[in-house]
């Protein structure tokens, strides 16, 4: 890149470039190792990013599944809650029916007594 205008430049600038190039070429091993580690650390950032691209659709899918589950579960729960009340009422009704049946059976068993009692009342009135 730095050869583009090198012919038009003053000589001292080319010399300065040469000095800078020399200083870059003769870096010690420790510095080169640290540069290598820095480069690897920078490149390692790219790997998780590719896998992170899956996180958004996966998160959206999970959120949709949860919403769907809540939407399905809530109406069922509501129906169950609503159906509990009629069952209770029905039970009470059944209990009432049972009472009335017992009452009527007792009534039929003592029917003769009630007829006699009625006759007695009529005789008393007359």
């Amino acid at each position, binding site marked *: *890149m*730095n*050869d*583009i*205008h090198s012919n038009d*430049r003053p*000589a*001292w*600038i080319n*010399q*300065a*470039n040469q*000095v*800078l190039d*020399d*200083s*870059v*070429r*003769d*870096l*010690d091993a420790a*510095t080169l190792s*640290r*540069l290598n580690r*820095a*480069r690897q*650390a*920078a*490149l390692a*950032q*790219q*790997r998780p*990013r*590719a896998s992170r691209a899956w996180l958004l659709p996966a998160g959206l899918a999970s959120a949709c599944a949860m919403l769907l589950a809540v939407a399905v579960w809530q109406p069922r729960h509501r129906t169950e809650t609503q159906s509990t009340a009629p069952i209770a009422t029905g039970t009470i009704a059944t209990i009432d029916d049972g009472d009335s049946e017992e009452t009527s059976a007792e009534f039929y068993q003592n029917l003769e007594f009630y007829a006699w009692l009625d006759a007695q009342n009529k005789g008393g009135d007359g």
Partner: protein
Amino acid sequence: MAEIAGTMTGSQLEFARRVDAISTNQRALDQFLRGVERRALRMAELACGSRDDALDVVQDAMCAFVRNYAAKPEADWAPLFHRVLDSRLNDFHRRRTVRSRWLAVFDRKSDDDDALDPIEQAQDTQDPGPLLRLAGSEAGKALDAALKALPLRQRQAFLLRMWEGFDVATTAQVMQCSEGSVKTHLSRALAALRRALEDHQ
């Protein structure tokens, strides 16, 4: 079943293609960073005055570049990397200016305190550093000192235009300023360097 098998094969192929594209991009990035890292370190060292700080700045610039610009076309990588590096160097320079102001306040308050001298603790930016000790020439030392003495923007203009070989427009893009500012910074840098290097011409 055949349709499912076909879809699986297609998605597997797509996955393999994606993995291949990522690894190709990583190889290209690795090659690019290998090509620019030494010059970037040299630029950072001239701006920071210390090898350790320069390495930190270069690593930070590499990480930010890969994070933000890895997907850009390869032809744009060099100006973009230098733009990130220039921005990091500006940040470093700003932090150091603030720190030196605080140090100056501290120095004024503790004139009578002989226990710690902040000036002695501060870094010597005129120290040639190991790079030029390796180069070992008087011209190299003089250039190093002259470059370190330049203001940050003038030094960046000189290094980007004259050493990296960017044209005025690209240098302006990297330094996030107008082309006129680049020309002004460069002209002042050349004049200052010429004065400083007169003995070595």
